[in-house]
């Protein structure tokens, strides 16, 4: 894992001290709320319905056991004993007091964490593949480049007051687990035909009120030129991005007007830039790379007799392995996904005790490492197959062994109107009820991969546009209504879902989802996913299933 050097440590400590002073000035009345608000937002502190909310950055989703224990301590000492993992690999605390926030930030700094740039019109926490360093078929560890971007974008003076917020995601696999095509910049590291590593650079993706899939503006960028090229993109955006209308200010709007022109401008800006000055020096790249060296894996055979025996003897464990574990690049190891979607509970929430349990398990069985996923789950990246049964038992003891990764009850949902000041409708109760409908493991397995994503407003923190089934909560004369979209995907086959028609009331929407799933089950080809069946059959028959023939 990356460790702070003296510069990182100093700048985070100085920021804590600065914010402590700003909070004191606000409490004494020297600063008005209007003056204070942008300062607290620059430190990840929002005001929500019931309390403040602090969003803590987890760079590229990587956590050590020590860091997770500290997050547990903060949840216990300053909050109400739990945290909420978000759709951008961050964690949010829902109840911190303003007067405690400087102390929380200081405690975060003790474990090399902070809340800087988790809000505001700046480059936000860079996100990446939660399986980084463990996935099969990866061309490099994407966290090396994510860390390069983190250092470059932290307090970058030229890009601290952008037209709007700016989100970057990095992957180094063909399988996209970082949703790069719906980010302002998505980077896919790959090898070209000559065997050289470089990035496909995508720009202008995003969700919110005007969703777009990103455009590839450069098919292959040599990896060492990453920062100068990013700098060129940011300069074009900073110069031409609209500042008169916040709804038109994201880079996706600029790109969508004329992608070719945007591409030309970036290339022109890049051509004239002093690349050798802007790009990361080789020695710095090597220094960063050393932090992401693979752990000391044992040399094992691919097959584990202990695992095979345990799977044969325990049906529940066998199901959990099938659903929640993934292949690892190292023989004899596996990637373990920890679902934070227990049936009937808020997606992404985790108690302080559970955080401690995961930290202990990671310490014993996964080289001290934990990852947060953008689908609001956690992941143990490096577990020996021989240890999987012990890991499962420990997770089960902590209430963390739900076997539903990628299934209908593994729902992304934003906090919605239960917490969020911007929401128009509740998300979590809908997620809980849908999960209960698909709680039966046999029913869920029969349905197979189904990504349901729910947002409580058009800002789309619940990524509803890219749900195979997306659900958007809207306010209709004071009543909650839920609009359904179909056919979205945030993966390598990214697409924006299409709105089906009139919305459903809170009491109707779960049955509506069930009708869609029933229709899919009746219509699918053997092995065909919901999304693929939708793409083959088109929207009309699904709409008919939703609304009946009267919809025509």
């Amino acid at each position, binding site marked *: 894992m990356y460790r702070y050097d003296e510069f990182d440590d100093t700048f985070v400590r100085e920021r804590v001290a600065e914010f402590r002073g700003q909070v004191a000035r*606000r*409490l*004494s*009345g020297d600063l*008005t*709320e209007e003056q204070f608000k942008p300062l607290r937002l620059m430190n990840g502190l929002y*005001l*929500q*319905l*019931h*309390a*403040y909310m602090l969003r803590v950055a987890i760079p590229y989703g990587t956590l050590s056991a020590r860091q997770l224990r500290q997050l547990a301590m903060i949840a216990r000492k300053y909050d*109400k004993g739990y945290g909420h993992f978000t759709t951008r690999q961050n964690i949010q605390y829902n*109840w911190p*007091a*303003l*007067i405690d926030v400087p102390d929380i930030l200081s405690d975060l700094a003790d474990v090399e964490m902070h809340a800087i740039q988790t809000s505001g019109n700046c480059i936000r926490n860079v996100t990446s593949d939660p399986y980084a360093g463990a996935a099969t078929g990866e061309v490099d560890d994407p966290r090396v480049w994510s860390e390069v971007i983190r250092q470059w974008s932290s307090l970058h003076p030229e890009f601290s007051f952008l037209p709007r917020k700016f989100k970057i995601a990095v992957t180094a696999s063909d399988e996209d687990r970082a949703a790069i095509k719906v980010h302002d910049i998505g980077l896919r590291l790959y090898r070209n035909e000559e065997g050289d590593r470089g990035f496909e650079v995508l720009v202008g993706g995003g969700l919110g009120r005007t969703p777009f899939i990103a455009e590839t503006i450069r098919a292959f960028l040599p990896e060492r030129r990453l920062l100068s090229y990013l700098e060129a993109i940011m300069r074009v955006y900073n110069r031409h991005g609209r500042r008169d209308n916040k709804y038109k200010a994201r880079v996706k709007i600029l790109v969508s007007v004329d992608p070719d022109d945007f591409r030309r401008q970036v290339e022109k800006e890049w051509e004239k830039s002093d690349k050798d000055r802007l790009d990361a020096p080789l020695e710095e790249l090597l220094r960063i790379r050393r932090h992401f060296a693979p752990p000391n894996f044992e040399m094992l055979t691919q097959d584990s007799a202990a695992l095979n025996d345990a799977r044969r003897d325990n049906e529940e464990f066998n199901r959990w392995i099938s659903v929640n574990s993934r292949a690892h690049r190292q023989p004899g190891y596996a990637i373990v996904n920890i679902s934070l979607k227990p049936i009937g509970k*808020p997606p992404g929430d985790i108690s302080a005790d559970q955080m401690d349990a995961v930290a202990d398990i990671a310490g014993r069985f996964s080289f001290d490492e934990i990852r947060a996923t953008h689908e609001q789950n956690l992941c143990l990246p490096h577990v020996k197959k021989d240890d999987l049964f012990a890991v499962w038992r420990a997770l089960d003891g902590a209430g963390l062994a739900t076997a539903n990764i990628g299934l209908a009850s593994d729902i992304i949902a934003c906090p919605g*109107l*239960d*917490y969020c000041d911007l929401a128009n409708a*509740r998300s*979590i*109760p809908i997620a*809980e009820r849908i999960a209960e409908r698909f709680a039966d493991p046999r029913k869920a397995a029969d349905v197979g991969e189904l990504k349901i994503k729910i947002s409580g407003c058009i800002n789309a923190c619940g990524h509803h546009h890219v749900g195979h089934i997306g659900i958007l909560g809207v*306010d209709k*004369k*004071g009543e*909650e209504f839920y609009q359904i979209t179909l056919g979205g995907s945030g993966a390598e086959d990214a697409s924006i879902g299409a709105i089906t028609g009139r919305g459903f009331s809170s009491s109707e929407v779960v049955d509506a989802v069930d009708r869609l799933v029933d229709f899919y089950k009746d219509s699918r080809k053997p092995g065909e996913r919901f999304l693929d069946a939708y793409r083959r059959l088109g929207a009309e028959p699904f709409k008919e299933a939703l609304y009946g023939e009267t919809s025509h």
Partner: protein
Amino acid sequence: MKAITANRLSDGAVLYVGDDESFVDRFEQARLFEPGEAEKVLAQVLNRKTAIASAYLIEAEATGPIGREALRETIRKNGPTVRRDLGKQAELINERL
């Protein structure tokens, strides 16, 4: 009728303006105003800058918030509907125990 609601500066907790124009924690203790008077009191409340982070008017009756924002304001009044153990609803239960 209108009530005046706010978020306390120190911890963001939901407040209401009560009978003597002091802040109270519970909607049940909130004073209901005629619209004109509510505007005037709100203007005074907004001057109490070290007490609150925000304040605004809501439509309400003695039974609770009403109108277009009734659900949002009822959630603020009680706490998250998905965590009955948190927020003012939990404080009320704890007091009863």
